[in-house]
């Protein structure tokens, strides 16, 4: 489903219908999905439609730039140990209109359930998009229009055993890559203490030949906090 489409185009996939059609010398973008419809009039001479997996923080409404992935089973990691795990993350589908160099977001779709949570306490914590994932030792099977796979390198820099039940990531640094069958990200989680860790993304695909997605967050805004996220409210 992801990729570049010449206009006019029409696509139907998993209950979602997208189209850009010419009507009376005007192009009309239409989306029909189980959660609602959208129509926009497009004024341009030449262009293409890009469908890309994007940061999962725009639906139903953008209220945070943080994603919290809770592990269904806690991980206990030994002192000085560094291991790679795989977790799933939700994706949203960005519909972009482009003419060679410039692009603009037209719509954001998602097929996964949406939930928010609080990381930390109400005074000093942050609202995060919530996602629950199992922990895998190898790349799990996913439906690429709903979920992606994140490779997380967990490094325990402390001299104690540490239990980790969740990871919080900042959307400003998400580097999403996609192929026909896989959407992926790579991240590092450096454990700095019993209740503290730092997460950061790597700009690399999980497999060779994957295409890099448009970074919606970096294109739109500048993060005041920077791309890394310091988990200081518990692991």
């Amino acid at each position, binding site marked *: 489903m992801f990729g570049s489409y010449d206009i006019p185009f029409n696509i139907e996939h998993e209950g979602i219908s997208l189209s850009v059609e010419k009507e009376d010398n005007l192009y009309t973008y239409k989306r029909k999905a189980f959660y609602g419809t959208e129509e926009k009039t497009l004024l341009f001479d030449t262009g293409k439609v890009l469908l890309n997996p994007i940061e999962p923080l725009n639906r*139903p*409404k953008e209220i945070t730039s943080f994603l919290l992935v809770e592990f269904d089973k806690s991980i206990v990691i030994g002192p000085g140990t560094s291991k790679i795990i795989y977790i799933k993350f939700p994706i949203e589908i960005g519909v972009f209109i482009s003419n060679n160099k410039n692009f603009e977001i037209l719509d954001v779709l998602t097929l996964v359930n949406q939930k*928010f949570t*609080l990381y930390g306490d109400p005074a000093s914590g942050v609202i995060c998009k*919530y996602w629950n994932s199992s922990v895998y030792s190898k790349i799990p099977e996913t439906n690429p229009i709903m979920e992606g796979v994140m490779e997380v390198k967990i490094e325990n820099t402390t001299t104690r055993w540490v239990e980790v039940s969740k990871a919080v990531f900042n959307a400003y640094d998400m580097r999403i890559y996609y192929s026909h069958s896989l959407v992926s990200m790579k991240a590092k989680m450096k454990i700095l203490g019993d209740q503290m860790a730092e997460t950061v993304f790597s700009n690399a695909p999980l497999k060779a030949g994957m295409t890099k997605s448009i970074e919606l967050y970096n294109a739109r*805004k500048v993060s005041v906090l920077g791309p890394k996220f310091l988990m200081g409210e518990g692991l």
Partner: protein
Amino acid sequence: MNLTEMTPFIQAYESPIFRFVIVVVTIILAFFVSKLATFYFRRSFREKMSKDHLEIVLKVISYSIIIIAILFFVLPTLNVQESSILVAGSVFGLVIGFASQSIVGNLISGLFLMIERPIKVGNLVNIDGNSGTVEDISIISTIIRTYDGLYVRIPNEKVFTTTITNYVANVARRFEYVVGIRYEDDADQAIDIIENLISENPFALKNPTPSVFVDTLGDNAVNIIVRIWAPVTDWYSVKTEMLWIIKKTLEENGIEIAFPQRTVWFANELSKKEIQ
């Protein structure tokens, strides 16, 4: 150009009228540059910074330009010496102290409000009984736009000394319902239904965990307390949406919201008279 040729300019520059004109032009220019700079920065950073931070940065830029213009252009033009500024400042302070206590009080309160920051531009607050959105925090006063669109100007001294309720200071906020169901209804089933509805709402936070429990066995109903945390940005919409959804879904499952009623038992059976 030699000294003789420059003499008319020097004389003109020493003329009080000419200096007054320079001072006025400098001040107008400083205000113009300050407006231009704030316009440019507002346009460039409007989508990249929060409104609150942007307003503070713009104020700092604006005041800095005016202060620099006064210190480096206006005062030298008026031949004001540093020592005389100190003397003038002392005298000015005394005059201000006696004559303008309320203005200075507001000004100092404004500075403390900017340092302590109990409220920020865009916050939903209640100050001295005025509920609304903070539109601006200036040196002297704070502007609030009430929920019904009124403009309320509150002196900073009042803001600083009164109780401030900031509804959005924390990122999450809790609300509560009391759902009274009939005694013959299954309270466990009602709790399950309500918990499912909460889990389906994206903005009803996963953590802190919502709580749903039987609180009291009331006169007319079994009272179930529902406590839900939501992001402050969407607290009100979640609160208004969820109650009606809970009521409708309970009724769809045969659970009725109880209303006050009384069963009367008579010690002796009443004699019945048939109505023709």
